[in-house]
């Protein structure tokens, strides 16, 4: 029997995991990644919530599994076009190369919200306002500092930047930011025990296992302060600190404070690749994400035969969910192509 061709688009955790699993079956797997290296967006993270596993080590395990296989990996290659003709998928890259496949897995993931759209929060205007990813860079370097190179005395985290916000067109919750703010506030207190840490939230959504415990630990052990209320605006003081205004909605009073760093917990949006390819394949869902056939039972299938979804191209997801989803998608691909496991 002729070997089937499977193409995986996206070399993040989902793409790596599904490609690696499918390589054990009777098919040729090709993996496309638009960046020079596989790994995806998670590479920028220092430690993972809720157990503070070092991200690099975890991803190295996934990547070393991938390297043991005979998968063709095309880095620096973006899929620009996707079309199904007579049950065969035809793909075109940015290098004008053409590929065909019997099954395609979309693992094109997400991008983060650009906080410049929320001008009132001062991102890109005041150097003291940074994103959670920029803060993660500091944690990776093991040193939290202001733009002037000083040790911050007070840090505020603001949740729901670009999520649950009608004004930027995102009605949904990004799911990962609440717990990420808890994680980062604990890491802040570990590096700077004397710094004051404030978390501003609309709701704290500690929905995963051990999240609530971590939140409790951040209060009890590390003394992180939580304020229910949204920061309405950030402005600079004469000494280049950031003044923030909010309502303490539980006290029913306006509140203001000066901070050295304001960390914006930017939300999750569909990546350009996700939106573009979903649109071209005719499976575009809400907010630019890809739409699966059915949320509960057919979440890896699409209305197009032979096109499968894995990971955060469907919705904001945690790393645990993405890997579990990639494995589930692999099962669907194997079923669809009726493939045998390699002997």
């Amino acid at each position: 029997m002729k070997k089937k061709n499977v193409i995986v688009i996206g070399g993040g955790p989902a793409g790596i995991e599904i490609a690696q699993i499918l390589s054990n079956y009777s098919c040729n797997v090709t993996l496309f990644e638009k960046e020079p290296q596989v790994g995806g967006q998670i590479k920028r993270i220092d430690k993972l919530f809720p157990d503070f596993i070092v991200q690099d080590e975890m991803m190295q395990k996934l990547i070393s599994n991938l390297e043991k296989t005979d998968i063709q990996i095309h880095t620096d290659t973006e899929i620009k076009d996707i079309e199904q003709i007579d049950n065969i998928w035809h793909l075109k890259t940015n290098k004008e190369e053409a590929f065909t496949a019997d099954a395609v897995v979309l693992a094109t993931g997400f991008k983060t919200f650009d906080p410049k759209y929320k001008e009132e929060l001062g991102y890109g205007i005041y150097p003291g306002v940074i994103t959670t990813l920029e803060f993660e860079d500091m944690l990776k370097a093991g040193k939290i500092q202001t733009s002037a190179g000083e040790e911050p005395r007070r840090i505020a985290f603001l949740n729901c930047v670009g999520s649950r916000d009608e004004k930027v067109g995102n009605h949904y919750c990004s799911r990962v930011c609440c717990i990420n703010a808890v994680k980062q506030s604990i890491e802040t207190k570990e590096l700077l025990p004397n710094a004051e840490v404030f978390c501003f939230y609309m709701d704290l959504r500690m929905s995963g296992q051990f999240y609530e415990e971590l939140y409790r630990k951040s209060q009890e052990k590390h003394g992180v302060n939580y304020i229910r209320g949204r920061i309405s605006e950030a402005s600079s003081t004469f000494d280049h600190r950031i003044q923030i205004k909010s309502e303490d909605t539980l006290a029913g009073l306006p509140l203001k404070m000066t901070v050295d760093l304001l960390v914006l917990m930017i939300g999750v949006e569909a990546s350009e690749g996700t939106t573009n390819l979903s649109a071209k394949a005719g499976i575009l869902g809400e907010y630019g994400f890809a739409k699966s056939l059915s949320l509960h039972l057919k979440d890896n299938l699409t209305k197009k035969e032979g096109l499968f979804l894995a990971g955060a191209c469907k919705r904001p997801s945690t790393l645990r969910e993405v890997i579990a989803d990639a494995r589930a998608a692999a099962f669907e691909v194997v079923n669809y192509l009726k493939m045998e496991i390699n002997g």
Partner: protein
Amino acid sequence: MDSWGFSIAKTRTIDIDSVDFKVLARLTDKVPSAKRCIMCGACAATCSAANFVDFSFRKTHLLFHRGQFSNISEELDKCMLCGKCKLVCLRGVNTRAIIYNLRIILNDMNYKRIAL
């Protein structure tokens, strides 16, 4: 002096920059469980005193956390130390010990208190 019939209102804004967090630390050193409070309001909902007077332990506790001490002594006077709030607290906060210690702390700071 002429009275014009109006005065300048004191700002209602909580200014965290002017808060002395050492006072809060005095409480949390004595009652570490105070740090666990998530302001759910179960204490205030079950409060025996709140059935008869305008009193919310949740709000009083929150204002203390935000360094707003001005009305707290008067508020605490309404508490009968029955401890019902402690029984219902989901986070195991020793609310009764908080009230007891707040009275001592505020007394030391020369805020008004009742005789214990």
